[in-house]
């Protein structure tokens, strides 16, 4: 008799595919949030697997702060063009122009928090009843409490103390008019699982995940890429550094790590020996101990 045992990656893949298929079956107008970061790339890959040989039956949406690393946008546009799936771009820049949100000021100004308004507006405008995303429970302690199917009220708010119990593999996506769901198919994956899966499946990712030389400066112990969107202080020296990014967010709040890892195997080696969490370089999480919980309650992803 053969061994009826799945590897952990195969089991995680089967779980994620099941969730994505449930979303397509239970919701009328779902969307997959796609930033061009590795987690959303993996989600998109899983969505293709879930419906093969049919096309992915929902569009992708990028909540675009306008503060991107150019490599990510190039990658995003090429990946979308290849797949033939529709990409909706919800622009924070437009939200600012329409006066929906006000730009933060000062040296640590970021559009990260502003994304929430843009996202909620886009969900309402496009009448999406479910937004899928690549958030993982291992990223942050408030996310560790998140359900696969996470209910949002008509204001897009998350109520962490009153979440629906989620048992077995039964997912309750029932809702009232105007409410929506956030669904996280790779909730149970860790950073390591994502990298191992990218390697095993030979999934293409943006070049900035691999080691490269970039003009950087150091702020509060975090290496920041020099872009047009970040104002630097006089004391902050800009120099060429050999870095890579562990996570891709808004360029104003995503730190790089000094690294010479230029292949997936080397990245996996690096991730397995690293002593700092992936989001350790995200200054948006460092604003307070409950920074993520507070943003999530308001509707952040």
């Amino acid at each position, binding site marked *: 008799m053969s061994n*009826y045992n799945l590897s952990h990656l195969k*089991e995680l893949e089967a779980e994620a595919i099941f969730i994505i*298929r449930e979303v*397509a079956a239970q919701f009328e107008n779902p969307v997959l949030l796609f930033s061009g970061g590795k987690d959303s790339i993996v989600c998109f890959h899983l969505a293709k*697997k879930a419906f*093969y040989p049919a096309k992915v039956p929902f569009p992708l949406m990028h909540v675009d702060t306008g503060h991107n690393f150019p490599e990510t946008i190039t990658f995003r546009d090429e990946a979308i063009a290849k797949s033939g799936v529709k990409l909706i771009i919800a622009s924070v820049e437009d939200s600012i122009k329409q006066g929906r949100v006000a730009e933060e000021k000062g040296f640590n100004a970021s559009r990260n928090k502003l994304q929430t308004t843009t996202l909620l507006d886009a969900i309402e405008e496009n009448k999406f009843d479910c937004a899928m995303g690549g958030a993982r429970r291992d990223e942050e*302690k408030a996310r560790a409490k998140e359900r696969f199917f996470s209910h949002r009220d008509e204001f897009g708010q998350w109520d962490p103390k009153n979440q629906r119990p989620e048992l077995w593999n039964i997912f*309750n996506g029932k809702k009232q008019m105007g409410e929506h769901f956030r669904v996280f198919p790779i909730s149970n994956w860790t950073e390591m699982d994502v990298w*191992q899966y990218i390697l095993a499946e030979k999934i293409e990712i943006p070049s900035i995940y691999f080691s490269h030389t970039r003009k950087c400066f150091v702020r509060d112990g975090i290496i920041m890429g020099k872009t047009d969107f970040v104002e630097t202080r006089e004391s902050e020296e800009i120099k060429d550094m050999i870095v890579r990014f562990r996570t891709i967010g808004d360029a104003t709040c995503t730190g790089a790590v000094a690294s010479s890892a230029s292949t997936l195997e080397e990245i996996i080696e690096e991730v397995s020996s690293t002593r700092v*969490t992936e989001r350790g370089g995200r200054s948006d999480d460092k604003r307070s101990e409950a920074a993520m919980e507070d943003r999530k309650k308001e509707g952040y992803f």
Partner: protein
Amino acid sequence: MKNENNNIPHQPSTIEHNSYLDMDLLRFTTAGSVDDGKSTLIGRLLYDSKSIFEDQMEAIELASEKKGDERVNLALLTDGLRAEREQGITIDVAYRYFATPKRKFIIADTPGHIQYTRNMITGASTANLAIILVDARFGIVEQTCRHSFIASMLGIPHIVYCINKMDLVDFSEVTYEKIKNDLEDFSSKLETKDVRFIPISALLGDNVVNRSENMIWYQGSTLLHTLENVHIASDHNHIDCRFPVQSVIRPQSAEFPDYRGFAGRVAGGVFKKGDEILALPSGFTSKIAAIDTMDGELAEAFAPMSVTIRLEDEIDISRGDMIVRPNNKPESTQDIEAMMCWLGNSPMQMNGKYQLKHTSRDAKCVIKNINYKLNINTLHRMEDDKDIKMNDIARITIRTTVPLFVDKYARNRNTGSFVLIDEATNATVAACMVI
């Protein structure tokens, strides 16, 4: 129709030797009350297996200091919500992850107090293994019985009793043996077949990851060694073929003009190409033409794989239907007896109507009878108490609007479980297990 994709279904051989592809996944739950050392144990497992990162450690050191704790409070690692940190209690299930070279682990960390029974049941519903903590100073207490019963009722195949705080009883073998004997007596009444015992000190780390030097009389495995080696391949049912259909895949593209496949996750048994199948509820039969994935065709599919099944004949199947074998059918019934844990904020309505979700099938049901309510500390059956509130466990009889295709929960956790949903609030209000 021929599958156009020529890829072989398995991983390319170049990466097959990589050890992480052989790792499997163990989901376990930890139940315990305030002060029994549960959070310390999880902290210890994460810390000693080097799964806590420096910035996490710094953050909890800082937070412990702020709160005026003497030691670094490892519980702060697991209590993710502001309210939990403020009150120093675990309210909701938190999921934690760590891996050793052998296995990846998912911990469902659940609160143990009786008022959070529903959270414990949520965590237990997907677990392969339960760790139940017993304070060496007190032995079996009410909550030990409750946690054991829940683990057994939820069909967790392996229970590990950790007799904790051995440092406070001078690492006494006699004390351990006494508690172990009591637990053996008690657990023989449970459904769970694989029951183990380990004397530990979560605080000092004895027998958690590293072997205890204080208890050389203990010859068994450490907790981590047990977690790494417990046999989980047979935790899934590989006998009774059950394939609840999630959706129908119809590309209607130039490349696949007539493709019609049934997408779903195998809930039991092993499906093979060429197998005769029966579709429920229609009763039509056909043969499996192919088991498809994007990586190519598979020769067989087993739980918990997500695949797409194509049949030789065009028969009517849609979401909520189930593909099974003609000689091994689940029970098709509208009258179901089940053990139920009430999860809702408002009490259960006798003769009330509820939405029901079972595998991929939706129905409505009415609660016909409450056979008894269970005191989960004493397992005493209360036949006259029909008042079912949050966290109560009862045996009920329901009638559904359409037949469900069920197995006994003890036989199959996927096809033996369902939830009830309040029609007004859409909240999930009950977790049910078919008897």
